[in-house]
């Protein structure tokens, strides 16, 4: 075990160093993305003001505000961009260096990403999650802060991150066939944003579509942790959504192993 840790520790610190160098850039970038959440906030505010009902599809306005900002924060917490670098590395051939090393290909990406993620989340958690907590404590009509839900949220968000990591690894292997990943990334991101509930809570969709989306792995990436935080699930529902999350995690771990087995034979390095 210590041997294992020693082998991978340099990747964590390399990831941290890289993240610090680019922190200023990262902050501006994150600020740019936050604007999107504010647009959504003002839109829903106008919707609730134009509506005669105080709750829409089971959401009161304060719950909606929490949903918007919490799903934005969860999106950062669970994001995984291993797949984008696989595409670039296949394109310029540097992936060969990773494959030559006597360490697991997937673990290599994982530990590198953990390093930079610690910094990213650490920097953003204070203003974003702090803001959410303050709103919840000070705001009127907001759902009461619940320690149990908070723990469920962090557990579920961690599982969501792992699902997302393995899902993206599986997805990144398509670079071995398509060479360039820009296009499929655009398509994937559009679909994931929609189906994970980050654009609009799944509860707003027609019942049939809702039921399909809730079973698909994408709801496990974002909708499940956010709804757990808001305390929208009964005990029984909580258990079943968590089990579903774990099922998808195991599914993608195995899928990644299987695809890797076949993809490695397909790899052709251009230039050198």
């Amino acid at each position, binding site marked *: 075990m210590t041997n294992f840790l020693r082998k991978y520790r340099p990747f964590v610190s390399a990831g941290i160093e890289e993240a610090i160098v680019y922190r200023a850039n990262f902050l501006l970038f994150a600020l740019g993305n936050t*604007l999107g959440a504010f647009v959504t906030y003002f839109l829903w505010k106008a919707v609730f003001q134009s509506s005669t009902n105080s709750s829409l599809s089971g959401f009161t306005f304060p719950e909606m505000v929490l949903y918007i900002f919490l799903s934005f924060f969860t999106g950062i917490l669970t994001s995984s961009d291993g797949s984008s670098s696989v595409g670039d590395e296949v394109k310029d051939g540097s992936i060969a260096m990773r494959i030559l090393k006597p360490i697991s290909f997937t673990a290599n990406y994982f530990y590198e990403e953990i390093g930079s993620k610690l910094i990213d989340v650490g920097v953003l958690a204070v203003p974003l999650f702090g803001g959410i907590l303050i709103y919840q404590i000070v705001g009127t009509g907001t759902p009461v802060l619940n320690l149990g839900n908070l723990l469920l949220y962090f557990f579920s968000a961690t599982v969501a991150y792992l699902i997302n990591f393995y899902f993206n690894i599986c997805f990144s292997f398509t670079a071995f066939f398509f060479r360039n990943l820009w*296009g499929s990334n655009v398509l994937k991101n559009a679909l994931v944003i929609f189906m994970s509930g980050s654009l609009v809570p799944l509860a707003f969709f027609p019942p049939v579509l809702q039921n399909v989306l809730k079973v698909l792995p994408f709801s496990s990436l974002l909708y499940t942790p956010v709804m757990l935080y808001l305390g929208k699930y009964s005990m029984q529902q909580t258990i079943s959504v968590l089990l579903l999350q774990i099922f998808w995690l195991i599914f993608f771990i195995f899928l990644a192993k299987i695809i890797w087995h076949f993809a490695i034979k397909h790899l052709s390095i251009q230039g050198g």
Partner: protein
Amino acid sequence: MRRVLHLEKIFISQYLKQTMEYKADFIVGVLGVLLNQVLNLIFLQVIFSQVPKLAGWSLQQIVFIYGFALIPKGLDHLFFDNLWIVGQKLVRKGEFDKYLTRPINPLFHVLVETFQVDAFGELLVGVILLVMSSATVHWTLLKVILFIVSIPFATAIYTALKIGTSAAAFWMKKSNTITYLFYMFNDFAKYPVSIFNHLIRWIISFVIPFAFTAFYPASYFLTGKNVLFNLGGLVVISVVFLFISIKIWNKGISSYESAGS
């Protein structure tokens, strides 16, 4: 002018060859851009399934504003996307040298070098939405002419903001995240300004004036009111911003120093 068009044609065909190198990926990408817009429309649909009118605007009217917003955004994306690369790596890696050694204006060269075909996704959706919702507008000949005239000015606002912010790279080496921060304000332009608070309204009207790329001109075509502010403002703002950003660019170029090796 003929030389400009001729050069533009050469650059476009060169760039298309590059893009077509990865054909399958490219087609998937265009589909992705299209899908992104379609999903955003479903989002609007969901909102309007809850309320008949949003801050006094009907779904059709919002669709018109949304469609209008995509046209200048798409045109800028199609023709002038290379500006992103200036702040991302051209200056930092010293690759900007190449523009200074050619017998054409460096800014012009940067602008025409790429032709981002995936922008057709935005333009296509924009046109479809405008056609779908055009029944809400009482079209007159004057409005048609003003519509055509307003498009290049609205596009110029996008391009001006990108020129000005990417020029920051001449001092800071890397400025694409600044461009990104500014650019993301365009999200606000697609909706009526009245839903935002005063601070944001003020910013998107006069500081990062994306409201003039969509909501203000579109609201003139929808209501026929305030032509002086809605369209006159567009012309003034876009000319002023373009002027300032070219000034910044020129000042930046004179302090550009190539990367050592």
